């Protein structure tokens, strides 16, 4: 059915390895079209608290933003697990997160939905739970947005999710 397209190869990869030297499967996403720009704007309207940092663009997705410096997309979530393991990330509690740590969103069966970088933490009430804000690139054709950890696009798709927080701070000790 796709005979003609089997002869074409447009995937461009970067040489990208984990800290342990294992290659990371990646692919540079193509440029976006008007339909993706429109989708980005419509979803943004559903989240009035989001702050847009960057216009709709291709090249990278959420994992490419976090682990590949906005140069490529890492689609396969098995690769995400490999990076977390090989790069020495440790899981931490929400109370302990600091800017630069990561938030990994998982669905009810533990399947990864999204990863973003924490950029600030608000303490809304004294002694209350800290409220991290993140910088997220939602997919390979969205813009970048600053948002509260609980203000995520898949909330509107009725997807139940959990968040795991990770740090690469070597001095951090789990109690």
């Amino acid at each position, binding site marked *: *059915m*796709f*005979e003609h*397209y*089997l002869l*074409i*190869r*447009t*995937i*461009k990869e970067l040489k990208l390895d984990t800290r342990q030297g294992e290659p990371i499967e990646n*692919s*540079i*996403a*193509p*440029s*976006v*079209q008007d*339909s*993706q720009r*429109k*989708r980005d704007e*419509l*979803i943004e309207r559903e989240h009035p608290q989001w702050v847009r940092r960057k216009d709709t663009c*291709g090249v990278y*997705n959420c994992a490419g933003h976090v682990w590949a410096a906005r140069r490529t*997309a890492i*689609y*396969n*979530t098995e690769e*995400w697990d490999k990076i977390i393991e090989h790069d020495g990330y440790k899981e931490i509690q929400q109370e302990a997160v600091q800017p630069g740590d990561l938030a990994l969103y998982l*669905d009810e*069966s533990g*399947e*990864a*939905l*999204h990863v973003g970088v924490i950029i600030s933490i608000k303490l809304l009430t004294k002694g209350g739970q800290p409220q991290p804000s993140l910088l997220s690139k*939602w*997919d*390979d*054709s*969205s813009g970048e947005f600053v948002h509260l950890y609980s203000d995520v*696009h*898949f909330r*509107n*798709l009725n*997807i139940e999710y959990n968040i795991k927080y990770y740090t690469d701070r070597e001095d951090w000790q789990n109690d």
Partner: protein
Amino acid sequence: MIETLKRIKSEDFIISLGYNLPPHAMRKLLIRTDEHERFCQEYGFGSITDDILRNYVSELMQEFSVGSKFPYDATLAFIAVCLESSSSTLAKEFLSDLSKLKLSEMSLCINVAKISLMENRKLPQLKSKEFIYSRESPPESHMDRPYVSAGSSPVVMPPGTVFKEHPLAA
């Protein structure tokens, strides 16, 4: 055009899926859509035939352009998820070919098709063999056994062979 096929390539449907989730999560989201149930029923009952689907995919692919995100990436991912539970030749061909593509413009449907292909391979393999009762008289030595021919080659069934209607043949 069949309403479901119109719907799954519409801007409304594509936007309703939100941003693309990673392939495993996207597959689960697509399975949960109302359109998934409708498509599977229509394909199963034959309202959407293999020919219709072939032409439909071919029309979508006319919008493919090197260097730009394919506008029907989610539509093809949706079809892949719907076909993963089918044993049809077209389903296997669709999933197998799509998962082999190396096109960055269609990353979502290719990655979803890889998962759907694995799911499709887990289905019980239905193997059928057509037996045609021979008009010739069987050799004397085979008179005590059921005697049939498979295509043009006569086959002697082992003693005690029982012919039953396959439950899925009904």
